[in-house]
């Protein structure tokens, strides 16, 4: 359990600094099971900050959303930092962005929280359908204590956790300025069970599966917007000249979009599962991301979001990279 008082104190202290613009963290949601992102611009705002297994968002998207409007004459650029509350997986997104030089290290204050697993909003909504009020969830070792309308139920974590938490290798932030509480130990290991099982299918079975999935896509780009690593100024699907991917919603363009999105995250995706969480059509985007993650681990011994000093995967090479496919 995270000491929320400690968190609030840290947020208060951080926002009181002159060189911090705002701190982004979590507050209680207005209804249902989700906590929402919230912002502290002044020390009083820190009071609403919470941390619970309902804090699913990856808040590292926010520093990337900062607008930099053109300056008026004599105006100084705003060089203040942004404070971000991060869990283990979230922190890897910052590391990856730093590696790509999308952000400078001194532009963020990272408030790290060792995390023992969050709740998958879709799973808990399925368990308590239509529920909208007064929900509390606490972390109790291998169970979540879910309090709905004053009644508490203990539910095994595995039933409610998203896939990423079940195999989380980095529960502690890999990079932080301030750590709330103590680091936790975890023996979880990513074994790519699901990827391996899917690989066994035949080509036809695989395409039949994905055809159905890609057909569902409505091209809302929620997956892109929720992803901390999708911060291109102009996304390739928005480009008009040349227009590689058309805007029409059909199997052809949807497939191109989904394949290219997955490819653009190759060696960059840190597996925070925000894309899949955000997708309104329930397309299993992590199945693509995880496959790539597994392959690059095998082929290039590379893992995204671990070291900010390493070079980006696709911007470097080794002379002896695999090339058995080359004629």
């Amino acid at each position: 359990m995270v000491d929320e008082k400690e968190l609030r104190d840290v947020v208060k202290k951080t926002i009181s600094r002159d060189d911090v613009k705002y701190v982004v963290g979590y507050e209680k949601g207005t209804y249902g099971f989700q906590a929402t992102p919230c912002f502290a611009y002044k020390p009083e705002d820190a009071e609403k900050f919470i941390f619970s297994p309902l804090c699913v968002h990856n808040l590292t998207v926010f520093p990337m959303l900062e607008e930099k409007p053109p300056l008026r004459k004599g105006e100084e650029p705003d060089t203040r930092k942004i404070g971000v509350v991060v869990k283990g997986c979230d922190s890897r997104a910052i590391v990856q962005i730093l590696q790509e030089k999308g952000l400078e290290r001194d532009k963020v204050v990272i408030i790290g929280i060792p995390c023992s697993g969050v709740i998958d909003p879709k799973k808990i909504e399925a368990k308590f359908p239509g529920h909208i009020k007064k929900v509390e969830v606490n972390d109790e070792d291998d169970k979540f204590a879910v309090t709905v309308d004053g009644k508490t139920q203990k539910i095994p974590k595995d039933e409610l956790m998203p896939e990423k938490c079940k195999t989380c290798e980095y529960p502690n932030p890999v990079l932080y300025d301030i750590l709330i509480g103590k680091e936790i130990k975890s023996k979880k290991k990513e074994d790519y069970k699901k990827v391996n099982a899917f690989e066994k299918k035949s080509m036809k079975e695989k395409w039949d599966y994905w055809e159905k999935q890609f057909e569902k896509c409505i091209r809302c780009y929620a997956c892109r917007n929720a992803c901390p690593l999708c911060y291109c100024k102009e996304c390739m699907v928005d480009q008009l000249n040349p227009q590689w991917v058309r805007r029409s919603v059909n199997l052809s363009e949807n497939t191109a979009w989904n394949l290219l999105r997955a490819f653009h995250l190759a060696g960059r995706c840190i597996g925070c599962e925000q894309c899949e969480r955000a997708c309104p059509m329930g397309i299993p985007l992590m199945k693509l991301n995880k496959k790539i993650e597994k392959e690059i681990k095998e082929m290039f011994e590379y893992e995204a979001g671990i070291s900010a000093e390493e070079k980006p995967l696709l911007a470097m090479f080794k002379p002896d990279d695999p090339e058995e496919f080359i004629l």
Partner: protein
Amino acid sequence: MKEKFEPNIIGFLCNWCSYAGADLAGTSRIQYPPNLKAIRVMCSGRVNPIFVINALQQGADGVLIGGCHPGDCHYERGNYLARRRMAVLKKLLEHTGIDPNRVRMTWVSAAEGNKFAEVVKEVTEDIRKLGPMQHFKRENKW
């Protein structure tokens, strides 16, 4: 009568090696299948996977990327970078049920007219076996 399937293959050939290799095959009058439509790029490292996906959308049954042999790249590292990219792309295609053999890569130097012809033959035959690419062809209905 059903027409025999003739694969439509797009070749992205690098200016310095593979394209020159293709040229040599031509000037040496070496026969190779006419299924390959060559597009000259300055370097195999220029080939963005978006080109490959786009080609497959627009009716290509296969794509061949040709670059210089490792170490010979005119820009020193372009072909190495392309190799990594295509390795990942092929794995992704395979996972979605699109035969990765539709996307091929080769090293052909400017002196290897023969090799170029052999590669085009092999790729054409392989893709002929795979049949037309129908997974996500773009429909041009206006």
